[in-house]
């Protein structure tokens, strides 16, 4: 089956660009990375399995490409820290303060708070909640164990809750 690349490109560009934008931060960088991802997909078309949705395939390429770019920014290495230490910290954290309403009400602030998270929490959160990637997919893309992904997501969300918690004045 032949793929209509142009049509697939038009229909999946938005999603790919969005992912790159969330992961890399700048519009220019995202445009570049999205183009790169499609160029790679175009070159690898013979390796594309039509049983898989095209968008999912190219999003996977974009995800890997963006992680690669981030890795290069960090001198070839992304550090995700010690799983056990993060797990211990996560379990000792209070379970209170989970308030989905806070998040829904403050879309802009949430995005800013995520952008300000340390990379090791930011990446898994973006991949899980923007990209809709499964724990396994995230684990493979970042070279981690599935459990470690869970720990990082948990810690990341705990950090977000703290940042987004209504301040004393607001809650009064």
């Amino acid at each position, binding site marked *: 089956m032949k793929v209509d690349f142009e049509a697939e490109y038009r229909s999946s560009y938005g999603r790919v660009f969005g992912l790159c934008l*969330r992961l890399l931060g700048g519009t220019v960088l995202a*445009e570049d990375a999205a183009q790169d991802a499609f160029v790679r997909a175009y070159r690898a078309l013979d390796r594309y399995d039509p049983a898989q949705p095209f968008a999912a395939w190219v999003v996977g*390429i*974009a995800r890997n490409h963006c992680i690669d770019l981030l890795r290069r920014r*960090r001198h070839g290495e992304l550090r995700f820290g010690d799983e056990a230490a993060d797990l211990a910290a996560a379990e000792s954290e209070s379970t209170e303060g989970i308030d989905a309403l806070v998040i*829904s009400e403050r879309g802009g602030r*949430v995005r800013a708070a995520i952008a300000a998270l340390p990379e090791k929490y930011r990446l898994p959160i973006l991949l*899980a909640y923007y990209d809709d990637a499964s724990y396994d997919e995230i684990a493979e893309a970042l070279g981690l164990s599935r459990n470690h992904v869970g720990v990082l*997501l948990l810690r990341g969300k705990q950090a977000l809750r703290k940042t987004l918690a209504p301040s004393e004045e607001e809650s009064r």
Partner: protein
Amino acid sequence: MTHPTELALAMLADDALEAHDAVEVEQHLAGCDRCAAHVAALREESQALEAALAYDPASVSVPEFVKPASVRAMVTGSVVVLLIAASFSTARGLIDVSVPDAVKWFNPFNAGGAVNLLVRAGTFLLSDRGSQLASSIVETLGGIVIMLLLLWTASVLGRRIRGPMMMACIACAFALQPSRSEAVEIRHEHEGSVLIPADETIDDTLIALGDTVEVNGNVSGDLIALGRRVIVRGNVAGLVITGGESVTLDGSVDGSVLAGAETLTVSSRRIGRNLFGGGESVNVTDTSNIEQNMLVGGEKVTLAGHVGHDVLGGGEELEVASTIGGALTTYSKRMTLLAPAHVAGDVHAHGVEKKDHVVVSPGAVIGGQLITELDKMDLEKNRYLTAHFYGWELVWLAAAFVAGFALLWVVPALQRVPFDGVGDALRSGSYGMVALVATPIIAVLACITVIGIPVGAIALMAWCAGVYLAKVVVAQLIGSRVLDAVAEREEHFAVSLLVGLLILTFATNLPFVGGVIGFIVTVVGLGLLVLFVHDVIFDDESIEGV
């Protein structure tokens, strides 16, 4: 009752628990309201996060997809360009369109350089001109390799550079460049001497390399002569580039002369344009006649003869006895104007040690004024108080802004080069240092082989551009970081570039440390450029595992 861990609950909420663990936790939830409520809150939180992060794909305007050039397309492209150029060249040979030299540049039939060599190689094959054949083929192959390299660069960079046509145009311009002379003749003797006898005329550009190079005959193109000892007595219609331990120029030259030697002696009865010379000892004799300007520097410089326009001389000791149509400007500790000297304009003697180190002999005539600036005065004068200083800084700033804007517009990826702190500064700094030192050396070494001359020239040009643009890259980096910190929204890159350039201009002009800052900025910026080009060329594999 033991509750499941926080991690287990969070993973359950994300449907990420292994099946048997999930069953276990679900069973617990059925009997524990507190944990069930917690998981429900976590689920809601995840959904809210998804909603907050959602990006409306419809809000993105989809740019046109630029297909990457395939190898086949590149090869076809190269062959087509070569064929078109070759046919132009042949057609020109048949028709022999005759146009004045000055407008040859506009003539589309004027295929030059690499293409001419290709066609000539074909004719040599037919006419079997033995010894020249081999070098012709080598030159032709060199030309083809360079063209392929350019096309390849165009295809690699094409995606990132607006208008891949830009690079294609450069490649075509290179292929179809006007060449004043049809060919280059090379005489090369490793140890012996190259002698062009007086009765021999070289109809091409001549490149002569040897221990001793003696050109007594005439050259109708340019002359490039390098050797321990170089003597040029014949007439050269073009430009002369020469260097060696001792260089003597006697013949007449229609173009300019660029000469560097330990001992440089110029007594040409005519140099049609300018003389640029440097050496330990430079002697321009009284028989020489330079129609335009002269720029010379050396430890001991003695100038006589006639110069049409201005003279700029530098050195420890300068003796001038020339007739000068314009002004004489010198930078030396001692300057002596000897008897037959006649300077129509002003004489500026800069950097002299004492007032009495400028001597004007009786009989020497100065049409304008004699202005002496003592070395110490230069030091004492505060440059920050002169309008001249600010004027030039403004010019520098404007030029850097225009060049930087063009660069960042053409290569948008440079608007945000990845850079994080001291580690990146050290890394790019070390690359920059290597590029700064090694490039000119490699370029000069490349120029020793004939095929390497264009490669060396391109490398040198790239090096010069890189050193200049290094500041732009760092300025943009600083500007965007500063604006990120203070501005609410993302500013246009022109704004961040200007902010960065202003900061840099200020920093590099600080007393005492300015020079060091300037050097560091150049080295780091050059390194960033090198790393950027490296990243563009060496694509990675992100398809594996998808």
